[in-house]
């Protein structure tokens, strides 16, 4: 027996109101979770970036340290080479000055140049020439000067001039 002429409407839990509600909260929750996921992802990336930066900083620091050591070494080498080159140049000038000091009338046969002294062997026509022309300038340079003479066959004198610089006196002068 039929009581109505229309077909019965199918009942559903997803009514219009429910659909609207789920759509609204669905979108809201999706946005919340998306934001949360974004933050979690960024947090992960930050950690990675910080670790990378930390490694790079460590590498740069060690590289800077190494370069500083190399710079110090080169500066040390440069300083040392300058010192040695100056020493060689001073030595050259000293020897040059020494040979310039020898008067033409005195003939040198041997010269021993030491760090704190000078020994000269040679021949001189007489003591006066030696004393005035060689010993006088030597005395002005060295603190102690000793001379000894030996006659040779032609009447000239063979001399040995020993001259020393006293380190202590040199320090006092400075």
């Amino acid at each position, binding site marked *: 027996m039929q009581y109505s002429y229309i077909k019965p409407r199918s009942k559903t839990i997803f009514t219009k109101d429910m659909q609207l*509600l789920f759509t609204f909260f669905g979108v809201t929750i999706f946005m919340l979770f998306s934001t949360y996921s974004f933050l979690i992802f960024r947090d992960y990336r930050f950690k990675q970036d910080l670790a990378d930066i930390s490694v790079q900083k460590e590498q740069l620091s060690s590289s800077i340290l190494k370069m500083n050591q190399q*710079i110090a070494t080169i500066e040390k080498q440069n300083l040392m*080479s300058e010192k040695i080159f100056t020493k060689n140049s001073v030595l*050259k000038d000293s020897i040059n000055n020494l040979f310039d000091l020898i008067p033409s009338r005195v003939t040198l046969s041997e010269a021993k140049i030491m760090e704190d002294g000078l020994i000269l062997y040679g021949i001189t026509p007489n003591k006066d020439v030696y004393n005035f022309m060689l010993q006088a300038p030597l005395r002005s340079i060295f603190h102690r000067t000793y001379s000894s003479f030996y006659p040779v066959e032609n009447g000239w004198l063979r001399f040995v001039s020993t001259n020393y610089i006293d380190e202590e006196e040199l320090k006092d002068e400075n």
Partner: protein
Amino acid sequence: MKINFSKQNIYLLILCIFLLIFVLVFSFAVLIPEGKEYRLKRTELNKESLELRQLSDFSIEKEVILQKLRSDNINVIRAFDAEFNSQRFEKLHRNFFTSLKISKRAKLEDEEGFSVYEVNTTSQISSPKSFYDFLDALNKSSWIISVNFPINFKREGEMISSSFTMRVYNNNKDLNTTK
């Protein structure tokens, strides 16, 4: 006035309140603290990036200084690295002397962190000028060499025989490596 709520509307309201509470709790308990942490970490990352950039700039600056020092002092660096070779030395400096002989080398104590070797030299020169030229040439040679006392000059006929010691300075391999 009496308001009639259908059962369905009450369920809807409860669900709505529940979801709203969830959204609020999630936002305030999770999302906002996470956002604050994100902001802090971003600031920290920016700070670290800035420090890295400064360090990188400093490193480049140092590199430039090092390269300049290297190029300015390349001869000195090579000379300190070069192993002394007496045959090559004789060959290079023979023209200053009539004869030149380098004797066996002896290791001395390190000086200012550099290895020092001493070599004895006996030679014959025609005039002191040759010796001055030799000293000038030493400062441009492939090694770092200083001429040391005692220096002996002895007249032998028309020639001057000279004997002196030379000190060759090398990098101490443990301390001074510039490569």
